[in-house]
């Protein structure tokens, strides 16, 4: 069902979800989805405690539930988006133990004890994260659907660069690379933006990497 929602975003998808009701949603859901209620063979559930944005949540989940679906459907954290649901678009990017991952390609039950950060967890006491501020300042988005994933990805990117990780754009992998625009673009290639806000996304990331807005 989530596949069609990006195209409905102008209608306010939140209101659409609120009024359409469960029957409509089941009609549109893919049979292969992990939203398991329609699968009678899904008998047992697993207990798992997820720590999301510093809060612990005790959940009983069908083991098929991806981390993405656990966040969105079970914890109501809809900031993390479902795009392709197969690890190709990056809209579902979250930060787990400091590293960005595609939450659509991992099972929630595999994350007991992990520290999970979503877009909702980046602001502190009402103040946006510097990366969120930079995306606004540089207009690093158009429709906004990929933006939570882009921002989580960008926040983790800076930590990876700080740790000295090389990338495919690094000429000599034995050296700690300088974060050029080519490095930023390569390191963000797991986040697709179909509005193609890439230049402004790169500008936003560069600004934060250089110490933020002055």
């Amino acid at each position, binding site marked *: 069902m989530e596949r069609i929602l990006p195209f409905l975003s102008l209608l306010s998808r939140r209101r659409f979800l609120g009024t359409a009701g469960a029957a409509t949603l089941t009609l549109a859901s893919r049979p292969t989805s992990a939203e398991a209620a329609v699968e009678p063979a899904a008998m047992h559930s697993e207990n798992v405690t997820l720590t999301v944005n510093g809060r612990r949540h005790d959940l009983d989940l069908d083991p098929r539930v991806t981390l993405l679906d656990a966040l969105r459907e079970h914890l109501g954290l809809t900031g993390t988006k479902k795009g392709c649901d*197969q690890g190709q678009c990056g809209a579902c990017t979250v930060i787990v133990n400091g590293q960005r991952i595609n939450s659509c390609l991992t099972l929630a039950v595999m994350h007991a004890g992990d520290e999970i950060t979503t877009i909702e967890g980046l602001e502190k006491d009402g103040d946006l994260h510097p990366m969120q501020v930079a995306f606004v300042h540089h207009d690093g988005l158009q429709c906004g659907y990929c933006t939570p994933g882009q921002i989580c990805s960008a926040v983790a990117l800076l930590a990876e660069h700080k740790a000295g990780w*090389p990338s495919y754009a690094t000429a000599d992998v034995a050296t700690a690379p300088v974060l050029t625009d080519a490095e930023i673009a390569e390191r963000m*290639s797991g986040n697709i933006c179909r509005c193609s806000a890439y230049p402004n996304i790169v500008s936003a990331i560069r600004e934060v990497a250089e110490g933020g807005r002055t």
Partner: protein
Amino acid sequence: MKPFRYERAGSLASACASATEPTAKFIAGGTNLLDLMKLQIETPTHLVDIGPLPLGEIEETADGGLRIGARVTNSALAADMRVRRRYPVLSQAILAGASTQLRNKATTGGNLLQRTRCSYFYDTTKPCNKRVPGSGCAALGGLNRMNAVIGVSNDCIAAHGSDMAVAMAALDARAETVAADGATRTIPIDALYRPPGNTPHIETVLAPGELIRSVVLPPPPPGRQLYRKVRDRASYAFALVSVAVIVEREDDRVRAARVAFGGISYKPWRSAEAEAALIGATATRASFDAAGRAALRDARGYGYNDFKLPLARRTLRAALADVTGVI
């Protein structure tokens, strides 16, 4: 996704014992397996999560090589300074594959055992001998642009998608496995994969329940290392053709050479023919072209992927020119 029983591995022995069931699967990073499970191409009834097992370290071996735990992520391996300094071709190859998000989850063992990305393997409305044995191969007469050109059969022309494994093949890496009965063995990466023949659904020599616990890199061979990848976009795409080369030059001659290709076969394709053509030859473009011709001598295109033969030769020539400094 079909329902399955989820088990956190308590020990290596119990994990292997659980996974001997024919419909059981190990899971580590899950980036390929879960994708295939959503499409019901993989339908395990039992998943054994090896996350709790102590297979996440990279250690020095006594002879100056490295032992890489099966659960070491692609990111951790590519960023390890010992790998970056001594095996740069491996870092380069890993960083050429997928995205950071995927490399942060994908593991060393899982990368080796990933399934093909042949579009007909993924399309459950089409015949595929790998997915449904005996159903036929839609790629043979289909849009086979991404498919293999060497070592494959009339039953399957699927290509292996790993970049990491190509570098490992060039480095003479070996997989260390453990079976349910506790037996261990060491398998050269090159011997891990079975030719498709008329059983393309059987992809490796591993027995049910046999787990890759580590990959060993021998001490780095002398010479300069390079991974070169050609793909449809600049990042985050599977290889059309890739090549890992390790070349030692002495004056104007090639003293030692290792060559492995990606994107052209069912496995990372180490080319003894190219290496034999290079060793002792003068480091010239003519020699590099001869090595490319030797490497692709037994290759054939299947229509849309005919371009891979000249592309593989040219990619090898460019990589060899780069690594030897020949203009």
